[in-house]
């Protein structure tokens, strides 16, 4: 068993299967179970069923500590709409929101949405990068201390502390400012699903969580090295992006057929064995934590958590986060200063 490190493993949860998608009470049961078991966040993937973004708002009101990361398909949203909705849920949840941006939605989904042709993949990634940039910039519309709300003087906000965005890019033209205050986290952690050089580039530029799909520890270490270089090229520190590979835990005896093809890595065995693998990856620096893929039932969540999480805790890799922790806190990401505060600090220096 290794000594106590200053790093803390982050545990995210992604649910699959039709379980809770049309029945909100199932989804709520899963979210509350995940929270009770200590998961740091729930990734609300874009499955058929309820809209993951508005559903996150309902879950924000019915949970106290778990982070919530809905998937958002860039081609079907407008940056201003998404920026205000996500920021609002960050206000409602007191800093527990993140977001996952899909540059390309699958073709089946695309045909349903309608009059938005599928751009080629590279263009889609460029548009997604611009999208993410506009959303993050809109969140900086108001400085953290813009709102004075002084009843005596009658001043509600300081006019010197908001910013017009006046963005004019290849895909979007947005004036700003956003009609909600800077979200509690300032910047909501952006999750990118890896798997291609284009996705890695997007993650290196603006992502704060990368959901990678390495096939083994060596591949994970290789991915870490590649991302460190990409981050450096983008002028960001290696720790600015949390690497959370996808894991498909299979508790108990070896099944006859393992899932094959692209997807989260199947890890088989007893809870101790699975926890051992996770700790090995974490200790080696190949991963900052994991996104655990489970079927969408409260039982499956409980079975995994009851077996594996206590072992991780004994190992010193994971501990519960305190009530009031933001998603950034749970990810070990620092405070996100506004770009305007940073510019001002640089100007002074």
């Amino acid at each position: 068993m290794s000594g106590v490190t200053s790093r803390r493993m982050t545990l995210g949860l992604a649910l699959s299967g039709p379980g809770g998608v049309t029945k909100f009470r199932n989804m709520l049961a899963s979210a509350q179970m995940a929270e009770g078991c200590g998961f740091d966040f729930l990734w609300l993937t874009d499955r058929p069923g309820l809209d993951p973004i508005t559903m996150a708002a309902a879950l924000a009101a019915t949970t106290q500590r778990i982070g919530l990361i809905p998937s958002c398909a860039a081609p079907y949203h407008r940056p201003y709409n998404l920026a205000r909705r996500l920021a609002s849920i960050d206000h409602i949840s007191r800093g527990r929101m993140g977001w996952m941006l899909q540059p390309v939605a699958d073709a089946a989904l695309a045909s349903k949405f309608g009059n938005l042709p599928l751009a080629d993949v590279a263009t889609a990634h460029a548009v997604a990068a611009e999208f993410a940039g506009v959303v993050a910039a809109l969140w900086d519309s108001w400085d953290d201390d813009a709102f004075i709300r002084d009843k005596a003087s009658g001043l509600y906000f300081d006019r010197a502390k908001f910013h017009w965005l006046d963005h004019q890019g290849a895909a979007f033209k947005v004036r700003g400012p956003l009609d909600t205050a800077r979200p509690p986290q300032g910047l909501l952690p952006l999750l990118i699903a890896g798997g291609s050089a284009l996705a890695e580039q997007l993650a290196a530029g603006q992502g704060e969580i990368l959901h990678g799909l390495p096939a083994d520890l060596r591949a994970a270490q290789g991915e870490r090295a590649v991302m460190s270089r990409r981050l450096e090229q983008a002028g960001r520190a290696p720790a600015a992006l949390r690497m959370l590979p996808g894991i498909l835990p299979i508790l108990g005896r070896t099944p006859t057929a393992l899932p094959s093809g692209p997807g989260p890595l199947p890890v088989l065995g007893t809870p101790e064995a699975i926890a051992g693998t996770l700790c090995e990856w974490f200790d080696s620096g190949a991963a900052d934590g994991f996104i655990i893929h489970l079927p969408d039932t409260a039982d499956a969540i409980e079975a995994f958590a009851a077996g594996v999480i206590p072992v991780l805790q004994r190992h010193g890799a994971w501990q519960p986060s305190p009530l009031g922790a933001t998603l950034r806190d749970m990810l070990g990401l620092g405070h996100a200063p506004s770009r305007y505060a940073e510019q001002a600090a640089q100007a002074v220096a």
Partner: protein
Amino acid sequence: MRRQMILGLPIHALGYHQGCWRLPEVPADGTLDFRHAADCARIAERGKFDFLFLADSAAVRNLDDPAVARDREHEQVKNEPLALLCALAMVTERIGLVATASTTYNEPFNLARSLATLDHISGGRAGWNLVTGFSGDEARNYGFDAVPGSDLRHERAREFVDVTNGLFDSWDNGAFPRDRETGIYFDRAKMHFLEHRGKHFKVRGPLDVATPPQRHLPIITAGYSDQANEFTAEIADAVYAAAPNLDVGRAYYAAVKGRLAKYGRAPDSLKVLAGIMPFVGRTRQEAQDKFEQLQSLIQPEVGLGMLRLHNFPDLRGHDLDGPMPEVELSRGRYDMFSDALLEKVRRENLTIRQTYEVVAGGFWHLGKVGTAADIADTMEEWFSTGAADGFNIQAPYLPGSAADFVELVVPELQRRGLFRTEYETPMLRDRLGLPPAVSRYDASRLRQAGE
């Protein structure tokens, strides 16, 4: 059963009166605090209100006009309505949840999905306040240089509603057997591709959400233009009217209901909701004191800004307590109101300060200061003489004046038999007196069977 009033509570920041946020009892940071909204929601539900209403505009408006003192107002930042209502659905059980959403700055599939989600998680309590967006500030957040013309916006809105209702009809009743024995999750024969191809949208469907409990969400509209009124008559289930006095209220009521026959609709199929800003007290004196306290908290910069938004010129630098100078009103969205206001100024020789106090006191809608009986009298008169089927209660400050209304006025309305004492039906549609929504495919089958 005797006809009863419909009551909505807009959760409008910290209240409708511009002085509200400076009252000692109002939580000045409540606009973004979920607990504030939840308090308001619970109060309204305690009062058996039909619905909560969240107005919206996806912009901070007029921020670049130095003559409009936005920095001294409380309502410029807020939580987005659909997100806030999904959260409020979790802390309420019966009250309706009406979200404002624009057809100009959304896509039908996305909005249908979000509205269906709200309807599912609330058990059929969702409503849609459909707006087309009138502000240039909003347009500029979505790639436009100016707001698209009213005709174009309403044309898009018509097609938008056709698409969203079509998407809500993607699944027939009973389409999801979810049968563990047979393994059949949904019945393909009961699924419909929309295959919509119109001028503004191309949408295949089906919606990937099961049919919302209400199937079609009640649609509320507002607006003052001829296009808006025609759109209301064609599409809306309820309309949020703006009428400062009984004569205007009756005229509007008759006019908008008069347009319904053209669309084969009965007068009762559209509910007219008037706005009323009640300043209620246990005595008339108490009500008057509260009203004056609020009026005294309006900052001159804010008052002048309000006049500016009602087509008046920049009056900064004039003596507030001197007479209103000769002014030429600009033209815009609020012509009907600004013209009436100027007429009143001339008739009553109002000073500049008195003029903005008139606006702040609920000029647009009905402002009423008095006891519960006084306010109930006014509401009853509007309700029973063809000016309103219900009201949006524009609480001057929140949550306090909503709580006063629920404690004082609601029991008075109930005593008179004008308002419910218990929630009867779970769904907002039923509560608004709308018939159950029939899928377009069922409707067409019924028509064929009848032929």
